[in-house]
């Protein structure tokens, strides 16, 4: 009972701390009405631009997923306890952990500074995010390959690279492909986020529409993006359920 009271008090305090009980802020909530009114009706004249931007986002997600997964695969080989000596494994796992620590939007900020605005920076950001995320999943998949299969393949005198080619990769293939689909689905959503800092795609369009106060165009963009994301989610989960479970 005491614990529940403590949690309740902490909850109320945290709301107070971030301004939930500030009357001037509460008064601003009434802006929602005019804001929504300005969004309606959705502006359909912007559809060609939206479709072009979403296409750019999907291309960014696709390129980022493939480049990131290729890098992840290489780093995972050097991070697997079955394939790399302990010191090498430790170094590569640390590199992957460092890459993973940085969220996609920070990678995007970094590459916008380095390579300028546009989808090129976005693809690099998604590549690095994908590398960090998939690298860990891949080496964990490699390490969970059945020890019996490995013993049998080692038992014929196969080298480590041959073990990778003929036992580890085939045994983890379903999991790897399933994760590739999942990260592609994630990257389509993430590509709209990285666009918010200028890294191309539909996020860049959302940023431009927000700055120019074109809320009815913004609503159309968000609705079309939502439809695309839901369609890709659905297709991806169906493919994964059918082929990779």
């Amino acid at each position, binding site marked *: 009972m005491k614990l529940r009271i403590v949690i309740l008090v902490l909850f109320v305090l945290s709301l107070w701390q971030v301004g939930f009980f500030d009357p001037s802020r509460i008064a601003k909530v009434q802006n929602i009405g005019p804001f929504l009114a300005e969004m309606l009706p959705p502006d359909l004249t912007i559809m060609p631009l939206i479709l072009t931007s979403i296409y750019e986002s999907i291309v960014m997600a696709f390129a980022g997923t493939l480049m990131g997964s290729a890098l992840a695969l290489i780093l995972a080989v050097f991070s697997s306890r079955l394939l790399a000596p302990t010191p090498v494994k430790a170094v590569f796992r640390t590199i992957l952990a460092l890459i993973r620590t940085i969220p996609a939007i920070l990678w995007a900020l970094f590459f916008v500074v380095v390579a300028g605005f546009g989808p090129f920076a976005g693809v690099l950001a998604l590549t690095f995010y994908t590398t960090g995320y998939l690298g860990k999943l891949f080496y964990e998949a490699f390490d969970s390959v059945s020890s019996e299969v490995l013993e*049998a393949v080692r038992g014929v005198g196969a080298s480590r690279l*041959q073990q990778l080619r003929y036992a580890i990769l085939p*045994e983890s293939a*379903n999991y790897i492909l399933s994760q590739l689909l999942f990260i592609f689905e994630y990257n389509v959503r993430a590509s709209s986020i990285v666009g918010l800092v200028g890294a191309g795609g539909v996020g860049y369009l959302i940023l431009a529409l927000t700055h120019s106060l074109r809320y009815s165009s913004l609503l159309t963009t968000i609705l079309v993006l939502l439809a695309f994301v839901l369609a890709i989610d659905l297709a991806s989960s169906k493919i994964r359920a059918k082929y990779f479970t």
Partner: protein
Amino acid sequence: MTALLEARDIWFTYDSRNYTLRGVSMEIQAGKIYMVFGRSGAGKTTLLKILKGILKPLKGLVLFKGQPTTSSETAKMAYSSIGYIPQGFGIVSNISVIDNVLVGALSRVPLLHSLLGQFPREELERAEEVLEIMGLSPLKSQKVSQLSGGQRQRVAVARAMMQKPLVILADEFVSQLDPLTATEVLDVFRSLADQRKIAIVITSHDVHLASKYADQVLVLRNGEFRLKMNGGSFSESDLITAMKDETP
């Protein structure tokens, strides 16, 4: 006659307190089938792993053609001459039957060629021949995940044969099969032993097929051999008694 493979006074422990094997010795001659019986935990799998060179004994020696495997050259030669089929067969389920069989040839194929999946013609022909012997030719392009338990087991034997072994070690090999399939696979082993002079060591806890196929039976209990008898000189009840016997 020098044994092809010999375990001499082997001691082994996993936890430095309880011995899994206690002074086990056995000689393996070319062209013979050895069946090692024992209850679960008797030390059968450990013995096979030591013979294969996967585990190192705490005390004692493994000799290949009379030479101790403590020398790295002999160990390497022994390792590549001994085919090992683990309990779950150890086959790769996501590749085809013929690719699994070709895995047995990996040590003879140049690294780059093997990574590109390019095997020399003589290896491909040998794989076809082995598949024919094992009755797997019609299934060669199928993924192993689509095969039955008996067919998977044949793939494991085919891979071991592809290795051109002098000895095949098969762990709990017949226990998981229906009697008819077990008989078919043991018939193949018999012909491998008779015609190609391959020595075969099979561990099992099922004594029914021993009298028909084994040239020597051995019973392992609590890490020690309690019975060693040559083919024809034992009965099933001898084996069961030795496996159960509680006298020291």
